[in-house]
C-alpha cells in the first residue's frame, strides 16, 4: 500500500509552502486563463506572456491543495523561457507519467504510454501521485490550464477516460 510519504515528497511540500512564480501579470500583454478541478473546487489561474514562440513570463494564482499548488509551482519553473514545442514535449511527458494510473481507473486496462522523452526534473517528485487516483487531477490541473492558455487543444483524454 502506498504511504503518505510517496505522495508528499519533501520537495512537493517545499513548493507548496514557497510557491515559485506566484502572482499576476498585466493583461494584456499577458493572457489570463482559469482552470477548475470540478471535483473539489481547486482553482488555478495561469498568467502567460509570450515572446514570439517563447514563454517569457508566467505567474500562478488561485488556490488549492498541496498537490495542485506544488504542481503549478514546479510547472511554472519548468516552462519559463521554453519554446512552445518544448513545453508541449514536457506536457506530454508529464501527462504520460500521470496517465498510467488514470487509465486503469476506468476499465482496469493498462494503456500503452510512450516513455517520457523530456527530462521532468523536480516534477518527477509528483510520480507518487499516480498511486492516488483522485489526486491525479490535482496534479494535472495547472498543465491543462497552461495548454489552454497556449491555445493548444487541451489533451484531456487522460482525464476523461
Amino acid at each position, binding site marked *: 500500500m502506498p504511504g503518505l510519504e510517496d505522495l508528499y515528497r519533501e520537495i512537493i511540500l517545499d513548493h507548496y509552502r514557497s510557491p515559485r512564480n506566484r502572482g499576476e501579470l498585466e493583461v494584456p500583454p499577458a493572457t489570463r486563463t482559469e482552470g477548475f478541478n*470540478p471535483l473539489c473546487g481547486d482553482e488555478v489561474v495561469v498568467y502567460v506572456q509570450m515572446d514570439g514562440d517563447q514563454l517569457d513570463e508566467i505567474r500562478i494564482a488561485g488556490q488549492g491543495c498541496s498537490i495542485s499548488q506544488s504542481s503549478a509551482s514546479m510547472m511554472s519553473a519548468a516552462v519559463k523561457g521554453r519554446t512552445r514545442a518544448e513545453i508541449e514535449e514536457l506536457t506530454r511527458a508529464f501527462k504520460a507519467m500521470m496517465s498510467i494510473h488514470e487509465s486503469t*481507473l*476506468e*476499465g482496469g*486496462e493498462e494503456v500503452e504510454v510512450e516513455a517520457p522523452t523530456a527530462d521532468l526534473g523536480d516534477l518527477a517528485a509528483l510520480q507518487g501521485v499516480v498511486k492516488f487516483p*483522485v*489526486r491525479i487531477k490535482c496534479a494535472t490541473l495547472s498543465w491543462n490550464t497552461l495548454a489552454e492558455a497556449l491555445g493548444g487543444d487541451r489533451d484531456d483524454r487522460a*482525464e*476523461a*477516460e
Partner: protein
Amino acid sequence: MSTDPLDVATVRKDFPILGREVRGHRLVYLDSANTSQKPQAVLDAITTYYERSNANVHRGTYLIAEEATAALEGARAKVARFIGADRARQVVFTKNATEALNLVAKAWGRAHLREGDPVVITELEHHANIVPWHQLRAEVGIELRWIPVGPDGHLDLTDLDRLLDGAKVLSFAAMSNVLGTLTPVERLVAAARRVGALAVIDASQYVPHMATDVAAWGADLVAFTGHKMCGPTGIGVLWGTEEVLDATPPFLSGGEMILNVTKEGFTANELPWKFEAGTPPIAEAVGLGAAVDYLSGLGMEAIREHEVALTGYALRTLADRFGDEVVVHGPSEPAERGGVLSFSVGDIHPHDLTQVFDERGVCVRAGHHCAKPLMKVLGASATARASLYVYNDTDDVDALAEAIAAASDFFAP
C-alpha cells in the same frame, strides 16, 4: 433445436426468478421486450457494490469513494466496448432510454432546430421517440414527418428522398418493439448523411439482442436502456460522437455536470459528465456493467442465432397448430426480425387472451406497447406480444401454444 448455440438449460439456472412457480405452474416469461430478467451475476454485482464500496463518486478522497468512482467509470468503459464506441467519454448514463431520447430532442433539438425544420421519424417508433418531438413541435414548431410501415411490417422507403428533403433530423428504431422488424440502419444513416440530417437511433430493442457496433453504424446518437439487457432498472445510455455531444448544450443541471458555478452563471463540465446532473445511478451502472459482461460471456452472435432459431420455431408452431386463427404481425422471415411476436387469436381481445395465459404461468403482454401510432397502422387498439430472450426455449413456445389453445377453447362462442 439440438443445435442451439446457447445452452439454455444452463442459462436458465443463472436467472433466479425462473425457478419461481406462479399459480401452480413454472414461470414462462415471454415479455423480455418489456423488461428482461436479471442473472445472479448482476444481482451480486449490485449487492457487492453496496456491501463493499458504496460512496458517492468523483468526490471523495478516501478509498471506498475511489472504488465507487472506479466502479462507475469501469462500467462506462465496459458499455463503451460492448457497443463498439471509440471512447468511454462518448457514453452518457441516463435513467432510461426515454431520458436519453428527451436529451436528444430537447437539448440538441432546442439548440439546433427552428420553426419549420423537418424532423423525420417512423410509424413504428416507441412513444419515447415520438412524444419528445411532439413537445418540441409545440415549443418551436418543428415539422414532424413519418416514414410509413408497409403491410409486411417493414418500413416503406419508397418516398424516403422526399421525406428527407430538407430534414434536420432522422430518428428511428433499429428494431421495432411491436413487430420485431429490423430496420435498414446503414441505409437510413447514409440517407440522413446525404441531406446533412442528424442521425439518431433508438437501439433499445437492438442492443440486448444483437452485436452492436455504433462506430460501424456511423450515426450521431444512439439511445438504449439497461433493464431490457439483463441490467437493472434506473439506467439508460446515450452514446454520441464527441462532435455532436460537444455541440449539445447541457440538459438537466446541478451537481457533477459543472466546472464552476457563481452567482452569475455556470461552466459545464467535460464529456460525459456534462450530461450527468446530480448523483448518477452508480449501483445501476455497476449492474449494467455486469450485464454486458454476462451477455458477452454468452456471446452476442450466439444470442442472435438462438433467437432466430427460436423465432422460426415459434412461427412454425403457431402456423402448424392454429393456421389462420393466429395471425402474427411483422416480417415473416426470422432473419429480418427480432424475437418479438405480436399476434392475435381470432377475435379474442388481447387482454382476455393474456388473462387466460396468466392462469398457466405464461407471461405475455397485451396492449399498445407504447406504440399507438403503429397500432393505428395495424388497425388494432392492442395486440398480444410474446418476446424471446436468452433464457427461452422451445418448451416456452410450446407452453404459449398450449395457452393459446386453452384461451381459444375458453372464449369459443
